[in-house]
């Protein structure tokens, strides 16, 4: 069994609280404060996963969000399992269950590992060159490719966790709680600015907080001790909000940032109930300070991917922060001084560092001297040419570098080790800066891209190592200097800090380290997760893919879940070296949001399930529910669709309702229609301009139907408008069109016709509309409003009356969408339900029947009335609808008029609205079915389609409306509706099927 790699000393995790967890079924223990990665390492487990393409064994490589290998499935509950979690980021909790991904049957023995031996056949882009024979076989190949790709597994049941959103507006947002971020936040808070400080860890202080060495001192204290006091002091600022376990995912324009706060992922399963799992902060900051630090680079050498190979700074964090030694016999490979801090930390904790391999010729910094004094063996000008060990590194082969760094010379040395650290220098985390639109510049001496402050897109600043400043003294001085300018500060509490630190003088960078074997025989990995190597990059270049984006896409470098945080710089370096280009000229690939992957749940927040979209209800809605209505979604409205009785089907219910409305009385909740109150001295002129017909002569108290067009001449909306007074109208719109019509009318009024004295106010929700129709409707209205004279003489069709029900004002219109004698009562919504109930009571003796939208549609179809959006589709003019009568030919202009006279809109073979009757009166056509004249013609010519179709209980036959090319002139013509299994014979008719003489309006 594996041994423990835990040492007893450290300040950051609580070794008194033991936490049990499982990895691949094995029960293990860690401590509170561990990450899964530190706990696994403490249990001497390095092998945690398999790579994407070659299924090579891979171990934990880092301690943060850049981790390419330790990608784990968490949990196995089908609703809460989570794929692709970085073991380096998830905090250990009691009962955590974790599994390796992308391996079968197990991470130790993975069948897919055969790909490693096939690797010569799988160079970059191999799949573009093969799997093409036989032609029909791609989907079969693809099946296997798909099943071997992918990493973890998606949950298979709905998530039961909750997610939340929060907007925040602040003066200063500081991203990153390392030393630069802490200094910045404190200076902002000290000035009294409303400040937010965000850090993705549960502990502030970055890497300085565990930097306890006499090479690094601030005001004569260890840097970590000094910083700890500064952090403790932050709580004294009420204007400073600190958010830990929160990571900024995206930096959008106008200083709009998204940050995800983790609230429960670190808690035991039982502690999570009824809590928000993640909260997405939507932050608007006047100023942004980016202090995201830098990440260490790997080195690119043969077989640099074995379990047991980590970044040097990660080895340091595991030992100093978590108290975990990554191995018992450790070698460190480097090109810079920071590695020597790791060596000192390991040594201090009693871990053996057998050798440091440094590609530089020498270094004289205080750090290096200290290591030399300890007596650790340093091989200058050496490189690793190979590593050995399949599931865990066992040894390394080392050789001396040639002077130009392109070859190795001399004898190969073999060094045994169970852990290898590597460091290729540091890469500033400029992701957020570039996401916000910032441009980078290349800093040659450090081989890094840093923010070009002259090309900063918003009020922001990058400080600390993300700005390319790495040494403690420079970093502090620069941060304070820049923040003073940024926040316009005079003097600060940090003006006279005394900082001591080791200074690096020697630098050497080799993007691709040579081996004793030719490149083609080696595997120097660039992108560990996606298995792309330096060879792949060179192959892509040979094949003519010269843009960095081409290379990235062809080799998939940087396309893994780590988004190339570790690999991008080396890929660029190798391209630059190979093509002889300056890296600065090459540019970088685009860093796209999010910085770290963001759950869909957190992006959506609470707007799931019942809150997916708003539900709009009428004031009478509850009555419909109580009376067994089925509802139809019309936009966001819930409209009563039909009211089934005693297990009726929809067809039966609609037939009954339709018949009842014509035989006795029907009642409909029409409250969802848009209603716009129009006032002003130019109201009539305004209506003249927006409707196709004329309005000036409409008498007060009269109603008129209007068609509204788009400027392209196509029918847009329709409805009845009533003249309430000399300068006062109420317009109705379709349910779905209400908001758009109002906004369109406002647009014309404000921008095209500002001279008109007209005011529009929406009153859709103010008034509920109860429509009562049928030959006995008059009797019912009489009972409800006894004072109202309902005689045709006083109250004819298409007129309106102000009235009162009890003491409540109401407007009654005598208008009809069914062809029946009909009234619409408009009453303040808070009284509508009661009026409806009163109507039902009053109508009982007249067999009043509530009906829904389906019956309304059927009844209007019997009369040939259109529904915009159903019988029209944005391609029909009024003339196409056989409504030439509604075009005010004498009118000088109205919206859309000019478009009606274009060469293709005046043609008479356009699609036109017609009626259809089926040969078999019982055959009901399918809405959407197509119409043809000659079924045998090839290619078949479609003349139009069925827009509305019903079985009419009043006519006892099937009726339909359709649009047909040249239909106006085709009355009596026989057409065919070709269905999948039969052809239906139909005849073109007039659009009005019922009561052509309109006798029933006054019945």
């Amino acid at each position, binding site marked *: 069994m594996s041994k423990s790699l835990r040492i007893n000393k450290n300040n950051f995790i609580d070794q008194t609280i033991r936490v049990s967890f499982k990895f691949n079924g094995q029960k293990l223990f860690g401590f509170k404060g561990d990450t899964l990665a530190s706990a696994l390492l403490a249990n001497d487990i390095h092998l945690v996963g398999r790579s994407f393409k070659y299924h090579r064994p891979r171990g934990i490589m880092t301690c943060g969000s850049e981790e390419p290998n330790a990608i784990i499935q968490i949990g196995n509950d089908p609703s809460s399992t989570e794929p692709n979690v970085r073991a380096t980021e998830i905090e250990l909790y009691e009962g955590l269950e974790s599994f390796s991904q992308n391996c079968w049957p197990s991470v130790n023995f993975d069948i897919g590992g055969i790909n490693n031996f096939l690797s010569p056949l799988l160079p970059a882009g191999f799949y573009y060159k093969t799997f093409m024979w036989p032609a029909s076989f791609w989907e079969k190949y693809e099946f296997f490719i798909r099943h071997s790709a992918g990493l973890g597994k998606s949950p298979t049941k709905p998530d039961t966790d909750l997610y939340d959103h929060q907007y925040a507006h602040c003066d200063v947002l500081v991203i990153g709680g390392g030393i630069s971020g802490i200094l910045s936040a404190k200076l902002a808070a000290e000035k009294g600015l409303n400040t937010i400080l965000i850090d993705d860890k549960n502990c502030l202080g970055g890497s300085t907080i565990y930097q306890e060495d006499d090479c690094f001192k601030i005001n004569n204290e260890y840097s970590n001790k000094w910083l700890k006091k500064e952090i403790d002091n932050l709580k004294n600022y009420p204007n400073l909000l600190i958010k830990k376990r929160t990571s900024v995912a995206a930096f959008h324009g106008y200083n709009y940032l998204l940050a995800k706060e983790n609230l429960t992922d670190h808690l035991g399963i039982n502690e999570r109930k009824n809590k928000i799992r993640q909260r997405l902060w939507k932050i608007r900051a006047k100023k942004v300070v980016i202090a995201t630090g830098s990440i260490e680079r790997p080195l690119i050498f043969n077989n640099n991917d074995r379990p047991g190979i980590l970044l040097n700074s990660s080895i340091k964090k595991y030992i100093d922060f978590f108290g975990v030694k990554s191995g018992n016999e450790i070698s460190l490979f480097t090109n810079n001084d920071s590695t020597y801090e790791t060596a000192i930390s390991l040594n201090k904790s009693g871990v053996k560092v057998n050798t440091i391999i440094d590609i530089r010729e020498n270094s004289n910094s205080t750090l290096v001297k200290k290591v030399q004094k300890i007596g650790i063996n340093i091989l200058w000008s050496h490189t690793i040419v190979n590593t050995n060990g399949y599931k865990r590194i066992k040894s390394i082969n080392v050789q001396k570098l040639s002077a130009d760094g392109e070859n190795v010379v001399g004898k190969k040395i073999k060094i045994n080790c169970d852990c290898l650290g590597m460091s290729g220098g540091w890469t500033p985390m400029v992701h957020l800066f570039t996401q916000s639109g910032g441009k980078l510049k290349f800093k040659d001496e450090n081989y890094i891209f840093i923010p070009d402050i002259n090309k900063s897109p918003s009020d922001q600043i990058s400080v600390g190592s993300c700005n390319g400043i790495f040494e403690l003294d420079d970093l502090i001085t620069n941060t304070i200097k820049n923040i003073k300018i940024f926040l316009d500060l005079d003097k600060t509490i940090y003006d006279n800090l005394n900082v001591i630190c080791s200074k690096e003088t020697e630098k050497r960078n080799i993007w691709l380290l040579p081996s004793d074997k030719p490149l083609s025989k080696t595997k120097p990995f660039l992108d560990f997760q996606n298995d792309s190597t330096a060879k792949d990059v060179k192959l892509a270049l040979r094949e003519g893919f010269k843009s960095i984006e081409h290379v990235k896409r062809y080799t998939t470098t940087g396309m893994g879940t780590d988004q190339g945080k570790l690999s991008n710089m080396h890929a660029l370096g190798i391209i630059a070296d190979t093509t002889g280009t300056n890296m600065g000229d090459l540019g970088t690939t685009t860093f796209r949001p999010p910085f770290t992957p963001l759950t869909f749940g957190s992006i959506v927040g609470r707007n799931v399930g019942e809150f997916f979209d708003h539900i709009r209800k009428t004031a009478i809605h509850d009555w419909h529910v109580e009376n067994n209505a089925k509802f139809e979604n019309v936009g966001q409205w819930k409209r009563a669709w039909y009211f089934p009785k005693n297990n009726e089907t929809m067809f039966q219910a609609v037939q009954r309702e339709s018949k009842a409305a014509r035989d006795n009385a029907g009642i409909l909740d029409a409250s969802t229609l848009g209603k716009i109150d129009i006032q002003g001295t130019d109201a009539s002129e305004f209506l003249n301009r927006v409707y196709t017909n004329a309005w000036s002569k409409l008498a007060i108290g009269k109603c008129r139907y209007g068609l509204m067009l788009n*400027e392209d001449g196509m029918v847009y909306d329709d409805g009845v408008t009533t003249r309430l007074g000399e300068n006062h109208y109420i317009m109705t719109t379709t349910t779905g069109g209400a908001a758009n019509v109002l906004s369109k009318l406002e*647009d014309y009024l404000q*921008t095209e016709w500002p001279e008109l004295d007209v005011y529009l106010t929406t009153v859709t929700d103010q008034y509920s509309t109860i429509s009562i129709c049928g030959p006995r409707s008059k009797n019912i209205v009489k009972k409800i409003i006894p004072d109202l004279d309902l005689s045709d003489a006083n109250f004819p069709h298409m007129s309106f009356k102000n009235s009162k029900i009890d003491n409540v004002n109401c407007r009654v219109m005598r208008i009809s969408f069914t062809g029946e004698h009909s009234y619409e009562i408009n009453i303040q919504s808070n009284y509508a339900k009661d009026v409806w109930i009163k109507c039902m009571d009053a109508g009982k003796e007249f067999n009043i029947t509530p009906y829904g939208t389906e019956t309304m549609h059927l009844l209007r179809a019997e009369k040939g009335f259109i529904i915009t959006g159903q019988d029209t589709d944005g391609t029909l003019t009024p003339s196409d609808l056989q409504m030439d009568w509604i075009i005010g030919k004498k009118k000088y202009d109205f919206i859309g008029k*000019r478009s009606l006279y274009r060469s293709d809109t005046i043609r008479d073979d356009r699609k036109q609205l017609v009626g259809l009757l089926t040969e078999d009166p019982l055959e009901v056509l399918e809405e959407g079915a197509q119409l043809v004249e000659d079924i045998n013609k090839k290619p078949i010519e479609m003349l139009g389609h069925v827009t509305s179709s019903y079985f009419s209980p009043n006519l006892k036959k099937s009726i339909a409306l359709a649009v047909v090319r040249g239909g106006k002139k085709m009355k009596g013509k026989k057409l065919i509706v070709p269905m999948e299994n039969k052809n239906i014979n139909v005849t073109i008719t007039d659009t009005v099927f019922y009561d052509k003489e309109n006798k029933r309006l006054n019945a």
Partner: protein
Amino acid sequence: MFIINCPYCGERDQSEFSCGGEAHIERPKQPTELSDDQWAEYLFMRKNIKGIQFERWNHAHGCRKWFNVVRDTSNDKIHAVYKMGERPPLK
């Protein structure tokens, strides 16, 4: 999400606004006098500029007023706002 400085209400989040496209395309006073080509020019043809564009926005979820915005479409920076009927700046 932009911040748009509504000339009536002040700075607000973009979600409160809707965009009405290119500004200063005046509706012809006498449409019937126009040829099909001229009418199509008004109806459909757009400069669709990459760079400084004059465009119309509506504070749809605020004061409901339409106004003009000068925005660089190559980087979405808003350079000015002005009310309907006012002279465009920077032109």
